[in-house]
Each structure stands twice: as structure tokens, then as C-alpha cells.
């Protein structure tokens, strides 16, 4: 019981850290509005990494899916991607490119982390579009590019956004360890206990958790909005719950 109350007290301190600024033991201001630069840096890092990942993975996934080539590449990147820990990837960039700016290094590492889910989902999404619809489009005289843009892309959008969502949430989470290599994101209060104290650690954790959930919920809404009406009609309530978390009935098997 006392433990619960103590915990509530600490969470109370953490919430006050989020909203009001104060001076730490060394007399420098922390908390409240001083969190904003950290949040901004966090979002900037995530935005840069996601933009880079999208530019590379999306066209590649769509083209591979359209041509049906490179299934091994598209599926195995996500298996390999899972096995390489985010921390190891960031550390590799720091160790092997010591002279390039930290922000760039971490952006590249996070982009590499974000590519596999987007690539695999775009590939699978295009691969599993109804072949009859594609044949019909071809019969109507659409070119390859038109088929990708007008038929395959719209039908694959729900799965593509599922991949983008997975990557975004993952990148937001992983950006918290960037301060360990010198990029001052929202993870700074987590690793610099002596500067921000316990309320800073817990407060910043709450902000990171909220960011991740907002991204998840927001992108889920986008995912629903871009799902063609025909696909929605085919689903029951149970499937809708699954689709919310980017899970389709046709599962992506890991390579044997």
C-alpha cells in the first residue's frame, strides 16, 4: 500500500516535471518549457530518419512487388533487420564513421532500422493484390506505371501504412538512446540522471510513451482512411481489431 502511494507521488513529481520548469541541483533550468528543445530534436531526428527510409524503401518495395522479383531480398531484409539490435547499429555508425556528425550517423542508423518493415510490407501488399484486377487493368490498356499507381498502390495502401506505422513507432522508441552517442533527444533525461533527477527520468519516459502512442493511433487512423471501401466491407469486427495492429490474415512467414 505504502509502495503504491510512494509510486503515485513519484509519478506526480514526473508530471509536474513535464509541465513546469525548475532549477536542478546545479542551478541550471530543466523541465517544463525546457523540454521543448528535446522534443523538437527527437521529432527532427525521427522525421529525418523516416523520410530517408521512405524514399528508399517505398519505391523499391513497390517495384519489386510489381515485377515479382527479389522476393528473397524483400522478405529476408526484415528477418535480418530484426536480428540486428538498434543499439549495435547506432554504435557501428559511431565507431566506423567517427568524423561524420552524430546527428547524421544516428539518422542513417535509424533509417536502416525503419527500412525493413516498409520494404517488406510494400512488397507483400503489392504482391497480394488481386491478380484479376491487374489483368483487367492491363486489358483496358493501362501501362505498367499506371497499374502500379492506380491499381496496386491503392489496394496495397493499408499494408503499406501498417509498415510505416511499425517503423515510426520503432524509430520514436529507438531515438531515446541517441543521447548516448551525443544527439540530445528526449532520451537525455533518461540517461543523465544527475542533471534531471528521477522526476526527469520518469517525466521524459511519459512523453516518449505518449509520442509513440500518438504515432500509433494517428497512423492507424490514416491507415483506416486510406483503406479502400471494398476491403473494409470484406472484414468482420475481429479482422478490424487485427487490422488495427497491422496484422493481416495472410501472414508473412519467416524464411525457413
Amino acid at each position, binding site marked *: 500500500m505504502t509502495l503504491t502511494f510512494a509510486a503515485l507521488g513519484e509519478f506526480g513529481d514526473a508530471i509536474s516535471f513535464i509541465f513546469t520548469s525548475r532549477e536542478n541541483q546545479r542551478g541550471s533550468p530543466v523541465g517544463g518549457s525546457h523540454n521543448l528543445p528535446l522534443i523538437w530534436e527527437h521529432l527532427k531526428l525521427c522525421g529525418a530518419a523516416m523520410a530517408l527510409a521512405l524514399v528508399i524503401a517505398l519505391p523499391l518495395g513497390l517495384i519489386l512487388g510489381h515485377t515479382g522479383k527479389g522476393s528473397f531480398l524483400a522478405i529476408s531484409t526484415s528477418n535480418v533487420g530484426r536480428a540486428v539490435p538498434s543499439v549495435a547499429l547506432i554504435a557501428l555508425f559511431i565507431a566506423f564513421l567517427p568524423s561524420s556528425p552524430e546527428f547524421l550517423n544516428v539518422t542513417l542508423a535509424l533509417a536502416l532500422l525503419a527500412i525493413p518493415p516498409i520494404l517488406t510490407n510494400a512488397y507483400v501488399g503489392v504482391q497480394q493484390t488481386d491478380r484479376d484486377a491487374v489483368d483487367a487493368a492491363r486489358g483496358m490498356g493501362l501501362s505498367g506505371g499506371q497499374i502500379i499507381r492506380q491499381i496496386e498502390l491503392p489496394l496495397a495502401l493499408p499494408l503499406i501504412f501498417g509498415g510505416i506505422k511499425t517503423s515510426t513507432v520503432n524509430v520514436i522508441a529507438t531515438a531515446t538512446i541517441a543521447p548516448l552517442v551525443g544527439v540530445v533527444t528526449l532520451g537525455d533525461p533518461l540517461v*543523465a540522471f544527475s542533471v534531471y533527477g528521477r522526476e526527469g527520468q520518469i517525466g521524459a519516459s511519459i512523453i516518449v510513451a505518449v509520442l509513440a502512442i500518438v504515432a500509433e493511433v494517428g497512423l492507424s487512423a490514416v491507415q483506416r482512411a486510406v483503406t479502400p471501401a471494398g476491403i473494409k466491407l470484406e472484414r468482420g469486427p475481429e479482422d478490424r481489431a487485427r487490422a488495427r495492429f497491422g496484422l493481416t490474415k495472410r501472414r508473412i512467414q519467416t524464411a525457413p
Partner: protein
Amino acid sequence: MIVTLLAQLKVRDRASESSCVEDNGFCPSWIADNLDRYKQPLIEHIELTLIAVVIGFAIAFSLALLAHRRRWLIPPITQITGILYTLPSVAVFFLLLPLTGRGKVTALIALVSYSLLIIFRNIITGLDGVPAEARDAGRGMGLTDRQLLWRVELPLALPEIMAGLRIAVTTTVGLTALVFLAGAGGLGEAIFADTQFQSNVVVAGGLCVLLAVVLDLLVLGVQKALTPWTRAVR
């Protein structure tokens, strides 16, 4: 700001080493001489990963069996485990501070809560994929609900269940590289003890990847051993 956290973790004494080590390079001889340093972090890493996956599987398996007959439970369980999956593990480490403090328990709670959705959804998809004919045949042979589950449905769902387990194992190995932030050690601590030193990063990071691959193959081996009929078909 982070110097205070990591100062005590320095991997080596720069002054007494060769020029390759002084240059933070990739030095096979240093690696050969210093492999012992990574034994303890590796053992911690394996320990945490295995315990987390076993607990996660036990919980997710029970939830899935519960929801298998009571279909209405699937959406709420998916939502709740989905939220646990979305919460960044690093944030969870610190959010648990007031309740469980720093250490292995906190790390395990975060790791387990992340793996639940992955395992749960694969068990459910696997059970849903069992052909209706197989169920009917089982019923026709006079199997009870329980017998049907253990003798027909679960064996047929096994490939899907094991696929989920493989994803859970590899992601957990990756996440365990972060538990040093909760004060629970592991290979992540070794990596961040010196991120400038290429040899250190390559060995500690390489061990993480190796561990993920080995555990993945191990689960695959178990799956092949448990489902001899799938080999004949392929």
C-alpha cells in the same frame, strides 16, 4: 552529460595498448586476448532473453487458449497487448522505476510485455487456420473439446505458433541490448562501454546478432522435430 553514467565502464586502458587499439581500430589480436570480457554480458543476455520469452510464451499461450473458445475476448486482448507492444521498452524501464526499481525484474517486465502481442496473434492465427475438415474428422472420432485442442488443433497450428516464437526470440535479443539502461547488464552495456572503439562494437554487436541467429535456428530445429509430417509434404 552521459559521461557520468559511462565513465566507470571503460573497456580498456588506452596507454598500455598497441597502436591499433589506440586508434580505436578493428584489432583481431586485441579481440582474441579480450574475448573473456564479453562472457559475463553474453551470459546475462542469454539468461534474460530466454526467461523473458518463456514467461511471455506462457502468458500469451494461456491468453490464446482462453480466447480460442471465447471469441469475444480476442479484440480486447489484442488491444491491450497492442498497447504494451507500442510502449517503447526504454520508457517502460523508467516508468517502472517507482514500482520495481532498477534491475532484472524491471527489465523482464518490459521484455515480456513487448513479446505478448507477437506470440498471442500468431497462436490465434494458427488455430484459426486449422482446416474445418480436420476438426470435423476429430469430432467424428469422438474427441472431446480438450482432446481436439491438444491432438488436432495445436499440432496443426504449430508451424504458425513457432513462426511467432521465432519473431519473439529475435526481437527480444535485440531489446535485451537495451536493458543496461534498467541496470540489468547484457551485451548492450558492453557496446556502450566504448562506442568509439571499433573492435568492441563489432564483437559485442556481433555476439548479439549471432545469438539471435542461433536461437532462431534452435526454435526452427524444435519446430522441425515436433512436426515431422511437414517435412514429408515439402
